[in-house]
């Protein structure tokens, strides 16, 4: 499949395709930083989401944001359930923790569905997931190290995803608060998974951490920020840039999250 040929073909019927996609440059660049094999496997999905965005997807409604969150929660809930069901994905000493995490994600799915329905909107259907990402992680449910790496990837992504949507929820304080409450739970999960993997619970600079596949780097890009609210924090605080970067988690755009999640959606 040749992405550029497809875009060229579209250009024949839509002369502005490049303009429409230019604002998606970030999506392209994060797309490019994924492993080649993963990128190839996921190209149809990522391209689809990119075009959906470029061609006037109306966003901003609260139900849209909740459906976006629901998609991520479906992914996490199924990942942890399948990990617990597999015999070799989770080391015995971590089963209790992952059981709790599964329970939380299942609860988030139910909570979000209820919230969406209460707004007279329709919850999106659960996608079909492929946690091997088209064969990039063939041992995801037989090798605890791979399973833990993907767990970290999903939890750190979840934290950034919710954070990126908070500003779209201000018109409904109840939903905003609930989203913040879920956001904090994802952060607790992330910290523990990272500690199980021998890392700090927090993200230093934009480092994905030892043992994380290069394909997960897009999850950490942009985390090295040390200027907050227009203030250069290291210079006023005397705290090192690395530790300041740890002290603030950064958001991800909806599109960046969909590009990451899209790798695991068939």
């Amino acid at each position: 499949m040749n992405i550029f040929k497809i875009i060229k073909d579209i250009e024949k019927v839509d002369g502005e395709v490049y303009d429409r996609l230019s604002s998606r440059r970030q999506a392209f660049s994060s797309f490019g930083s994924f492993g080649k094999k993963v990128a190839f496997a996921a190209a149809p999905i990522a391209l689809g989401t990119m075009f959906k965005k470029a061609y006037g997807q109306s966003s901003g409604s609260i139900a849209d944001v909740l459906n976006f969150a629901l998609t991520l929660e479906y992914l996490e809930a199924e990942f942890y359930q399948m990990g617990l069901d597999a015999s070799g994905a989770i080391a015995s000493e971590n089963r209790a923790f992952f059981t709790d995490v599964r329970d939380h994600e299942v609860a988030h799915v139910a909570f979000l569905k209820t919230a969406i329905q209460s707004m007279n909107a329709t919850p999106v259907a659960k996608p079909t997931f492929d946690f091997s990402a088209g064969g990039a992680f063939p041992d995801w449910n037989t090798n605890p190290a791979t399973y833990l790496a993907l767990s970290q990837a999903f939890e750190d992504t979840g934290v950034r995803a919710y954070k990126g949507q908070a500003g779209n929820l201000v018109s409904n304080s109840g939903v905003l608060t609930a989203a913040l409450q879920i956001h904090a739970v994802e952060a607790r999960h992330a910290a523990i998974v990272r500690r199980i993997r021998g890392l700090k619970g927090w993200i230093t600079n934009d480092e994905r951490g030892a043992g994380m596949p290069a394909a997960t780097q897009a999850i950490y890009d942009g985390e090295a920020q040390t200027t907050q609210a227009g203030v250069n924090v290291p210079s006023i605080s005397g705290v090192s840039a690395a530790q300041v970067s740890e002290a603030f988690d950064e958001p991800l755009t909806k599109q960046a999250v969909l590009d990451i999640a899209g790798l695991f959606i068939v």
Partner: protein
Amino acid sequence: MMKQTTPEENEGGLMKSLGSPMQRRMFFRYAGATAAATTLLLTTSCDDDDDVTPPSNTAVDLGSGDVGILNYAYALEQLEAAFYTAVVANSASALSSAEMAVMQDLKAHEVAHRELFKAALGTSAIPNLEVDFSSIDFKNKTSVLNAAKTFEDLGVAAYNGAGKLLTDTGAGLDYLLLAGKIVSVEARHAAAIHDLISNNARAYGAAQIDANGLDKAMAPADVLAAAKTYIATEINFSNLPK
């Protein structure tokens, strides 16, 4: 027993003499909160009869609107930063090197949060609060970790509860994002502390999470009531948005 008086309580005169916020900021960059700076501040400002900063036995008013909420966050970050500073200074004998490494990170993170709020608030910032850690035994690991757990879980609930109170649709969105950037780090801290308390048995604070999978969210009044044991300065939060 550890009661700390922080330098800004009597700094009003000196702050005025330092002039612009930038000069003030630069001053603190170099002075920090060292003992020498404290002495300097106290001695140079005590004869100033035009002191705008209330003495420590008078309630500090957090203010109203977004500024009030930012001051509320600043107060909590002052408390956390002072706590971890005291832990790093006094608890080496009580903690393992791995535990102390976590404490050093937490100290750095909370100092970064505190200094950011102070800079962002500028002249609207509340003065430094006087903390009261007399209930904490800094030579006892359980006491230190339990206090850390209290502060972190409370911090998470405080930010979760405060998000909706940031109502300014212009700058307020930036403040909401800023609060979001901080609260997830507080939640990471909280989980790590629970994990340390469980001796790496992967506790994360299960009791904080309800049947819907939601972490706690608390109103400022409830948070400040819970933090009152550790803050000697009286805080007036009556003007905060509700």
